[in-house]
């Protein structure tokens, strides 16, 4: 069982909690593959997605996870409605809470926003990405995928390639993986590496070829295109030339290393289309695993006591 009311990040949960989530996700994945993709486990449970930033895949992933478990899920695209009328985050959540919502899945552009809301609502919160802080469910689905494909996380070398400075995905991956003793490397242009990053327990590189050598997993981060207009990068083509994951660079990886990307991809920028199409690319499977991991989280936070309970 999760120790805290809210799932805010992978920094402040234990390895045992992560293990439980990942183990619970295994039978969940079976449900997705069934002909009838629905179990009654969370029937009568009420949750809402609160997305203050645009998102297609994370939001639908949670929504689908809720549906497969028979929970009722309300979707609020808050970015366009009440916030513009001056309604505060607390007011929005409070309103839904008193209507009976037990769990919020929340995405917000400000780091710490779900922590703040968590202190102000009795409902449970799943952080679906807060600013540049954490994106724990993405971190978990990445770990699930790595474990599924490569086995024991403690033996792996994982390289995170790209805009770490602005990436909540990178932070959640790092916090989660270092708990298992995974060797984590980070590689990006100096301008996209936050200060004192190595203190998180990772190896920091600017030379992509050095970083990729001997890697079992490469997790490529999306590059926001506006980075080039804010003094961080000269151009997307220069980025692609020096930091993009190309077929040629795949040769540096360990044999049967896997290629991951949290999506959506900028083909020709951080990743080449042929790399995505490579047999060792697990990008699509990550998406499926995302539903399974989110089902596990919803189940553990709103439903049963353990993984044996789902059937």
């Amino acid at each position, binding site marked *: 069982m999760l120790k805290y009311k809210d799932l805010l990040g992978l*920094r402040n949960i234990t390895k045992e909690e992560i293990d439980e989530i990942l183990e619970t996700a295994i039978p969940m994945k079976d449900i997705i593959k069934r002909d009838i993709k629905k179990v009654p486990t969370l029937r009568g449970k009420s949750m809402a997605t609160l997305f203050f930033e645009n998102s297609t895949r994370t939001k639908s992933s949670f929504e689908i996870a809720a549906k497969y478990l028979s929970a009722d899920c309300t979707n609020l695209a808050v970015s366009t409605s009440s916030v513009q009328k001056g309604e*505060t*985050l*607390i007011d929005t959540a409070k309103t839904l809470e008193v209507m009976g919502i037990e769990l919020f899945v929340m995405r*917000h*552009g*400000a*780091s*710490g*926003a779900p*922590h*703040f809301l968590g202190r102000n609502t009795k409902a449970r919160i799943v952080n679906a990405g*807060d*600013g*540049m*802080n*954490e994106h724990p469910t993405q971190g978990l689905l990445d770990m699930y995928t790595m474990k599924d494909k490569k086995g024991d996380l403690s033996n792996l070398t994982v390289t995170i390639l790209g805009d770490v400075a602005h990436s*909540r995905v990178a*932070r959640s991956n790092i916090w989660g993986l270092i708990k298992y003793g995974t060797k984590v490397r980070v590689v990006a242009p100096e301008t996209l590496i*936050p*200060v*004192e*990053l190595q*203190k*998180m327990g990772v190896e920091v590189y600017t030379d992509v070829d050095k970083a990729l050598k001997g890697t079992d997993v490469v997790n490529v981060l999306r590059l926001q295109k506006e980075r080039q207009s804010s003094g961080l990068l000269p151009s997307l083509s220069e980025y692609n030339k020096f930091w993009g994951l190309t077929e040629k660079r795949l040769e540096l990886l360990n044999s049967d290393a896997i290629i991951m990307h949290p999506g959506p991809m900028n083909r020709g920028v951080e990743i080449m289309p042929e790399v995505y199409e490579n047999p060792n690319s697990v990008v699509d499977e990550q998406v499926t695993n995302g539903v399974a991991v989110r089902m596990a989280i919803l189940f553990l936070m709103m439903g049963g006591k353990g993984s044996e309970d789902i059937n």
Partner: protein
Amino acid sequence: MKILIKGGKIIDPKNSVEGIYDLLIEDGKIKEIGDNIATDSQDIEIIDASGKLVFPGLIDMHVHLREPGLEHKETIQTGLQAAAKGGFTTVACMPNTKPAIDDRTIVEALDRKARGEKINLKVIGAATKNIDTDQLTEMGDLKEAGIVAISNDGKPVKNAYITRRVLEYAKQFDLILIEHCEDESLANGGFIHEGYYSTILGLKGIPRESEDLIVARDIALAQMTDAKVHIAHISSKNSVELVREGKRKGIKVTAEVTPQHLVLTDAAVEGFDTSTKINPPLRSEEDRIALIEGLQDGTIDIIATDHAPHARYEKEVEYAYAPFGAVGLETALALINTKLVKEGVISYSQLVGKMANRPGEIFKLGGDLSIGSNADVIVFDPDKKWTVDPDKFYSMGKNTPFKGWELEGEVVHTICKGEFALKDGKVTE
């Protein structure tokens, strides 16, 4: 009315006084300090201060009292009550109000508002019109109206050229520029210290070099113009070194530090409590240590609170959206007592130097117990334990990062101009 404070330990390094004496106040002035002052008069109030410390009333050169225009955050009245509670008999309010304090009429209006209050209010005028402009304020006229310094606090003076002209012009009227040192282009919208915590929390950082650049600029310009510059709320280790070097060269630079920067680091931001969002931001442990060293060796002249009250609803938002600032008047002395004096970092004599004598000297505001001077005196119980409870603050601002902290030391009496502003721990009517 006379007040006789008996048997307290009086500490006033300015006059080389440190020992158990009586202190007699008569007609609002300090009449006598000595052993066993006789009490033959009828009209006299006798205060037993045995076991207590007696200091000159503290001076805070950096408070935001939010008038005019921002009275939902604080008023002159509530701010001065908070000052009395904290042992401050003189506070100087910053001009970043609405409108800014950039005109004689506003200074006069504030003086009128403070007239009925027991604590001394001093006003700091803006350096340029409406704060962030190229037009100098009428510093001569403002000085005649009573301002004690100039500052664009909240922002630095716009650029090097305007700063040069401000310094040259202010010098004629013997006004010190109190500078908020922040290169805004390097800060680039950041709001916590750029370091390990900004990295792991994904909050935008302000590098310490943002402060260093403006400290260096202003020291160079103070040298060029032979004018006086006072560095507000210094927070960076490099800036401490720049001030130290400037002083060594004889440049007229002084500096202040806040209790929060002396006691906390950016680690306090974890948990996203918006009362830790201040500008300059709480910095790293190495910066904090450098600030303490600067305080000890005299590089940093004074302690000032940067008391910055906000309404609850303004701070109860996402971290990124909260305004900068924390209140400080009612916790400053106890924090310095608990975290610096009791831990052997500075002495009581240094405390009085940093919080009364030296600000008094720099800004010509008294701040000592010289015979014949205005009777601004506090009686302090250094061992009284209490828990910080913002709901009990006199200040309207409850935004303190020290909520729930156990502190030692409480002001028992605050006497200003010979009258009780705080008696037995309570603000007088």
